[in-house]
């Protein structure tokens, strides 16, 4: 018996095309999966935490038609649209549903003075400084960032709130502007065509002389 000679079997000719196909598909696959999977549209949109009280915006803002600013009354004056204090709920709920089990955390808060620990849904990174008053008073409606809150039983995030998404609007705000008096009318403009909507936005950009800043320091300071 002579020395063992290794001879590649004939099927090994297939390895080269196989390796080429793999090398061509794997990197784009990984790049696409990372870009798609780690996009804020995947990671952030759809965040719908269970709050301590099952508060329904669909009932309060939608059915009853209570203005956003009845509860989030700081939105026109400060950077933050505050979650209302327990007292605001109790304006009505001392009399309406006073024995409700669902509202128990609310009544406990009213008695003890401890806050109801609400979970923040729309949470920007700590290095981004967003100012609600600056936007709302210039005719950017709640709905542009928060969606149709007045139809949501449980609030969830509908926009990515990413930097690209912010800049898209700062570069071309016309489709997102309206009469500042109508910012809390979330259903406004729903039936408009795109052309009508942009015409309306262009009008209000001119009236209010809006030129959204795109400097880094506008949001990062």
């Amino acid at each position, binding site marked *: 018996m002579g020395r063992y000679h290794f001879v590649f079997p004939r*099927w090994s000719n297939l390895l080269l095309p196989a390796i080429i196909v793999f090398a061509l598909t794997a990197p784009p696959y990984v790049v696409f999966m990372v870009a798609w999977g780690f996009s804020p549209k995947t990671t952030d949109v759809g965040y719908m*935490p269970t709050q301590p009280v099952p508060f329904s915006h669909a009932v309060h803002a939608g*059915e009853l*038609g209570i203005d956003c600013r*009845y509860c989030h009354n700081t939105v026109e004056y400060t*950077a933050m649209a505050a979650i209302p204090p327990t007292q605001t709920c109790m304006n009505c709920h001392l*009399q309406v549903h006073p024995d409700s089990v669902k509202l128990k955390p609310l009544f406990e808060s009213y008695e003890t003075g401890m806050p109801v620990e609400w979970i923040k849904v729309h949470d920007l990174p700590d290095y981004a400084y967003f100012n609600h008053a600056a936007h709302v008073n210039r005719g950017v409606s709640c709905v542009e960032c928060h969606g149709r809150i007045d139809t949501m039983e449980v609030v969830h995030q509908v926009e990515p709130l990413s930097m690209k998404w912010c800049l898209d609007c700062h570069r071309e705000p016309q489709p997102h502007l309206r009469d500042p008096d109508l910012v809390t009318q979330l259903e406004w403009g729903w039936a408009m065509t795109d052309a009508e909507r942009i015409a309306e936005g262009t009008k209000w950009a001119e009236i209010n002389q809006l030129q959204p800043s795109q400097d880094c320091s506008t949001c990062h300071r």
Partner: protein
Amino acid sequence: MSSGPKRQSDFLLWKLPRGFFYVAILMTCAALIPPALIIRARSTPRDSRRIHLIQNMDNQPKYKGQQQNILFRDNRAMRQPVPGTVARSQMVGDTHFHLGTVDGSYATTYPSQVTVDMDLLKRGQERFGIYCLPCHGAIGEGDGPVHNRAMMLLNLAPSVSNGTTWVQPKNLREEAIASQSVGQLFFTISNGKNNMAGYAAQIPVADRWAIVAYVQALQVAGDASNESVPGADSLPEHRIVMDEDVTEAEVDEDKEGNGS
């Protein structure tokens, strides 16, 4: 018999060891898992906060509004003013403007900071729509959507209404309120009355005066005669059709129909 080996070499793929097929099938299946997870994440709402692989200083060790600070017993990062102190914007030196009282009794005039004009009334109308309309209704007759909802709840079983009690909000146009001074209206908006809570925390002082002006406008407008409206004669005739009128009209029509 030379055709035997030739036939075997016809299709090289079937010559591959079986292990290659298993690996290829496994890898294809594995490659489908990430897109399946991504599609699921994109199409369904979820309760959990996103996984923060790269922190990027997204959450910094500092406190922003309404955040939690466990150093304090109530877990609030935001603190109440120290007892006995007054924030700069909350000084109540001028009782006429801030409290609606002059020398311990309700003011009968608007404070000097407030100019009653169309702008103030329009501001008042808007603020009334936000803070008063839910209970008092669009024209202040005590029939707002919250009132209607509460009345509906009263008709339901106690297990559904959870002990709801409700007193109809005041008709702001009735004599007892129309006769009140502006100071008293302002005081009621600020501090509440009976079942109504005070709105001093929700509505800034100047806006409360605007609401007072608008409530007075509602009271005047409700009982206004045509003579008090300039150019009322030239306005198109407008008749509010009440349900009763409709039924009467329908009844009349029916009668006429029967007669002929």
